[in-house]
């Protein structure tokens, strides 16, 4: 049987989300776009801190393709979905990953970032509870650049 690497993603700086008493209003650079995107998906529900991990490089070379892994805290019951938001992108809602057993609450993908920002990952449990974490990412070259001459 062939076994493959855990995620195939490189070793990289893993930054855990902020410590306790996390609230949206405390999020640096929380944008109106993010608020609207969260409202659209979760209504008035607001996340607690924790229950989800976001793994991403803290310094990104090119925002056109950024490796991320989102996973729920394995010590808790599995959530029904994991969500990823990029608050400063033209569209803050990045992706939602829906999970049914026997799938694990974990996925890896590559995303676009239009500039330096605080990424936000959420776990959503079937009882309606939400958990969140945020990670600050510095982007050397943003995605979505229109002007060729700015793309050196």
């Amino acid at each position: 049987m062939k076994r493959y690497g855990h995620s195939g993603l490189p070793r990289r700086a893993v930054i855990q989300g902020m410590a306790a008493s996390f609230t949206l209003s405390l999020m640096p650079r929380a944008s109106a776009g993010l608020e609207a995107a969260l409202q659209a998906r979760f209504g008035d529900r607001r996340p607690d801190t924790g229950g989800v991990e976001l793994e991403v490089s803290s310094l990104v070379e090119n925002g056109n393709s950024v490796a991320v892994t989102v996973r729920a805290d394995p010590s808790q019951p599995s959530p029904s979905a994991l969500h990823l938001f990029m608050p400063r992108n033209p569209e803050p809602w990045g992706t939602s990953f829906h999970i049914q057993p026997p799938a694990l609450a974990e996925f890896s993908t590559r995303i676009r970032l239009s500039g330096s920002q605080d990424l936000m990952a959420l776990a959503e449990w079937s009882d309606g509870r939400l958990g969140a974490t945020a990670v600050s990412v510095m982007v050397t070259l943003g995605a979505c650049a229109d002007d060729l001459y700015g793309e050196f």
Partner: protein
Amino acid sequence: MPAAGMPVPGRKLSVIEMKRIRLGRTRHGGLLLLALLASGAGADCATFEIVGDGITLPLGGQTGNPEAGRRVAAERQRGDCSICHQLPLPNDHFHGNVGPDLTAISTRLTPAQIRLRVAANRQMNPESVMPDYCSSRGRHEVAGPYAGEPILTDQEIEDVVAWLSSLDGSAP
């Protein structure tokens, strides 16, 4: 190393010789230069005179506006100065280090010296990678929309000179 066999305006002239040369907008005004350098024809910005290592008089008699200069310097399709230089443009996270740090340039250079370095840097140093922003002379294979056009207009250069002349290291 300069690129071999590359015709660069002013290459064979000493700074002292250059002092006497006037660059002209018109072909008539530019005749002397053309004869000396055998460079191609092309539009140019206003007539200016290099005195010492500066250009004393504003190009085309324009008055520079520092605020407009800041915009020209920041705009990617115009000056795009921070691609090579450190500048007080806090909206751009990363600034290049190809050219000197300009955050306090006014403490080192006079407006006349800054003007020469923006407008006609290679008149002073042909091997520099910083092109002449006010000249289209001696250029090769320029893409259609830019053919015969200097990189910046007289007014834009004066605006940039005015802004750079205000930078003393105090701006964020």
